[in-house]
Each structure stands twice: as structure tokens, then as C-alpha cells.
């Protein structure tokens, strides 16, 4: 009974946290882009424009709900959910802290520690393809449909490279559990570097980073939703809260992707050279995880406003002819290092 209560508290905290961070990210995006482009961002609604997301939310709620007459209503309304929910669900398998000794027991800061966690995360990112392709198709609009097909083709292609680069991390760890991935990154490498997976598997990290950009449809891979090319891609026909769900869904995917990068390659919630135990360790792990994930969230925003976007054929060509061979190269290198006993 107490276990159930603790689980519900964890789920509530996680969902509440993610939804808040998603709203904060929209503020970060707008102020960050303004800083990069040498202008002010929103600065009227509250100090430094911090209440801008609240204003945006209110605006979205009060907008008129338009559903095109030719649209397939059920799938039109279902697709934003199909994009948003897998991103939230995938976070259930990511350890966001070590453990808190609460109520006389050690509460592990992960919602579900199944033995195949990483595989389920990959499966959930496959499920989010449905939201895109259904959104494009249900809108009964040529541009939406093309945007939807392009976007889902892009996601499927880059999923392969992502799976291959994750494969090497799982090989060196020996398990699909993300808690074990984190605990296998303890200690140091050659005495001075922290034993994070980014150092021996740097190529894999680069491939994973790029494919995370492609999976979340962020620049430089956001042609399917580019404003100038395809109106707005697969969410052209969406208005008010449905559009807000897509918009927030993109940020939710970003958060999950950043959390995954941190967990797989940067040691997760651990401090680099030894992590304390007990309550202090638990709270510190939460803070460390938050800092590391925020860095990568900022990195996503930074890259978006720095690089131009890829053309669609360049994008697909890169996915198949560059990143999959690179991921295989990474696999060869890491296998060689494993056999030689270096890692």
C-alpha cells in the first residue's frame, strides 16, 4: 500500500515537473533566441518575461477551435496525444536520481526499473511516429500530408542510427536497465577522466546527439515543420490547444532526449569523482541530473538558432549513408576495445 502511494507521488512529481519544464522551455527558447540574435525577448509579462508561458497558455485556451470540415475528426483530435504521451511515458524508465531514504525505506528515484528499460524507450519513440503520420493524413491537406510523411520517414530513418549507437552503450554496460548504465559509469578512466561513456564512445555520442535532434524534429532537421517550405508541415490545420499540445510535445521530446543523453553518455545523476550516499546523495543526485539535463536543453536551443536547416534530400541521404555507417564504425571500435580489455 505504501509502495503504491510512493509510486503515485513519484509519478505526480515527474509529470508535474515535466509539464512545468516544458512551459519554462518555451520561455528559454524565446529569450535564448533573442540573446543569440542580439535583441530583447519577451520582457513585458512579469520580470524578464517569466510569465510569458502563462500568457501563452491563456491565449491558447481562449482561441477558437477550428476543425476543417474535410478532416477525419477522431484521428485529428487523437494525434496530438499520440505525440505528447510517448515522450512523457519514456521518462518513466530514466533514473532521475539515486535514491532517497524516506519513510524507513530506500526509494529509488526511477518510476519503473524493468529489465528492458532502454528497449522500451526506443519502442516509445517508434510509437510517436503514429502521431505525426496521422496528423498529416487526418488534416486532409496536401501540405500537411507531405509534411507528415516526410517527418515520419525522417524519424524512422534516424531511429536506426540511434538504436545502433545505443547498442554500444548497452554492450559495455551489459544490461538494458538504465540504472545499471548509470552505475557502470562510476569511477575514473585512466585516472583523471570520469568514466563516462562519452569518452571511449565519442563517435557513438556524436551519432546519438545528431539523431536525437532528428528524432525530436529540431533544427537542423526540422524541414517537415519549416515555416517557409511547407506552411507549417503536419500541424498546419491545428489551432489553439491542439497546436499547443504539439508544441509542448516537441519540448517534452526534447526533455526526454536530453535526459537520455545525460544518462547514457554523461554518467546520469552522478557527480564525476565519487558520489555521496544517503539523503545528501539523493538530493545532490537530483540537482546534478537537473543541471546536466538543462545544459543539453540549452544546447538544443543554441543549435536551433545557430545552424541553417538541411534540405530534405540531404537529410535523408545523411541519415542512411552517413550516420548508419558511422554507428557501425563506432560498434567496431567499441567491440575491439572491449575485446582488448581497454574498457
Amino acid at each position, binding site marked *: 500500500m505504501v509502495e503504491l502511494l510512493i509510486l503515485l507521488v513519484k509519478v505526480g512529481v515527474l509529470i508535474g515537473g515535466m509539464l512545468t519544464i516544458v512551459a519554462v522551455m518555451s520561455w528559454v527558447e524565446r529569450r535564448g533566441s533573442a540573446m543569440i540574435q542580439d535583441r530583447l525577448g519577451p520582457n513585458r509579462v512579469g520580470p524578464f518575461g517569466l510569465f510569458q508561458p502563462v500568457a501563452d497558455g491563456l491565449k491558447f485556451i481562449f482561441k477558437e477551435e477550428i476543425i476543417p470540415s474535410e478532416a477525419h475528426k477522431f484521428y485529428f483530435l487523437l494525434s496530438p496525444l499520440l505525440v505528447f504521451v510517448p515522450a512523457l511515458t519514456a521518462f518513466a524508465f530514466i533514473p532521475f536520481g539515486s535514491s532517497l531514504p524516506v519513510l524507513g525505506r530506500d526509494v529509488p528515484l526511477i518510476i519503473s526499473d*524493468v529489465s528492458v528499460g532502454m*528497449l522500451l524507450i*526506443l*519502442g516509445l519513440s517508434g*510509437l510517436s511516429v*503514429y502521431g505525426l*503520420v496521422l496528423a498529416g493524413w487526418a488534416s486532409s491537406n496536401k501540405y500537411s500530408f507531405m509534411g507528415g*510523411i516526410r517527418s515520419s520517414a525522417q524519424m*524512422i530513418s534516424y531511429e536506426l542510427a540511434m538504436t545502433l549507437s545505443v547498442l554500444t552503450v548497452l554492450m559495455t554496460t551489459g544490461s538494458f536497465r538504465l540504472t545499471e548504465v548509470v552505475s557502470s559509469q562510476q569511477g575514473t578512466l585512466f585516472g583523471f577522466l570520469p568514466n563516462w561513456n562519452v569518452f571511449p564512445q565519442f563517435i557513438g555520442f556524436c551519432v546519438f546527439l545528431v539523431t536525437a535532434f532528428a528524432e525530436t524534429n529540431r533544427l537542423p532537421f526540422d524541414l517537415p515543420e519549416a515555416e517557409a517550405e511547407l506552411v507549417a508541415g503536419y500541424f498546419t490545420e491545428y489551432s489553439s490547444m491542439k497546436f499547443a499540445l504539439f508544441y509542448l510535445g516537441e519540448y517534452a521530446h526534447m526533455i526526454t532526449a536530453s535526459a537520455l543523453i545525460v544518462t547514457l553518455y554523461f554518467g546520469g545523476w552522478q557527480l564525476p569523482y565519487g558520489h555521496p550516499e544517503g539523503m545528501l546523495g539523493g538530493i545532490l543526485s537530483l540537482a546534478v541530473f537537473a543541471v546536466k539535463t538543462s545544459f543539453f536543453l540549452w544546447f538544443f536551443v543554441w543549435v536551433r538558432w545557430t545552424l541553417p536547416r538541411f534540405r530534405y534530400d540531404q537529410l535523408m541521404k545523411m541519415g542512411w549513408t552517413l550516420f548508419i555507417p558511422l554507428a557501425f564504425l563506432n560498434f567496431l571500435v567499441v567491440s575491439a576495445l572491449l575485446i582488448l580489455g581497454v574498457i
Partner: protein
Amino acid sequence: MLPVILFYTMAFIALLFSMVVILHKNPVTSAMSLVVLVCSLAVIFFQLDAPFIAAIQIVVYAGAIIVLFLFVIMLLNLRAEVEEPEDRPLQKYLSYISFFAFLVVISGVVRLTTFLPERPMVPDPLRDLAYSLFSTYLFPFEAVTVLLMAAVVGAFILTRKEWS
């Protein structure tokens, strides 16, 4: 208690949505119902101590095969076609009767069989599965690789416009 309720709920959802798959006119609804069916079966697979198969079911079936179906349906613009009047109604009635009879007969057989006593599952099915897949069953594993390669090449060659 809770796992048992979960199993029967998932079984009910599986049966319900499999009927939607075969009965609904719109192919997109059938494909999405198949996704629900596959995910509910994945939950049941989890409860049967096969976590790897459950995850693979979601990744491969729900994440790739049915997406392929959906792409084909959408790119060929397949609507909910009006099914023409059945010119061989006997086949339909016979199918319904025979498969209902099949279900009843097999359920009877299952009820009357004494199964071998239940043995405990190995403590780490994932690890043992991996080991046996790469040692005892290495040859079928490699053969399936060749099969998938053949399927990819075949699908590519079949759909080239200038060759058909």
C-alpha cells in the same frame, strides 16, 4: 490480485480490438486497432516473464510493421471501400460456423488436457535468452538475417515501376 485484473483487462481489450480490426470498414481504424492489440499483448507478454519479447513486440510490430501498413494505406489513398454484395455468401457462413466450432472444440480439448506441472522460470530470462540465441541458436539467427535482407531487396525490386 492486481496482476490478475491486469491480465484479464488486457485479454478483453485484445479480443475487443481484434474484432474491430476484422470488422471495421476503414483500413486506418483497423491498423490503429491492431496497434492497440499488439500493445495489450505486449503487456501480457511482460506478465509471462518474457520482457524482451514484449519490448521487441512494441519496437518491431507496433513501431515498424504497422507503420509500414499505415504508410501504404495513406500513400495509396485507400478509403473505406464500399464492400460489394457478397456473391459467395456460403463461404462467409461456413467460415463463421467453422471457426466458432474450432474455438469450442479446442477450448474443450484444453480444458480436458492435463498439462505438465508448472516449472519455475529461470531467474534471469533475458541473460539466458541472449546466451542461447548466440550459442545454440546462432544458425537460425544468421539465417533470419539473410531472410530479412532478401525481404528488403525483394520489396525494393518488386515496386520499381519500370520492372512491373
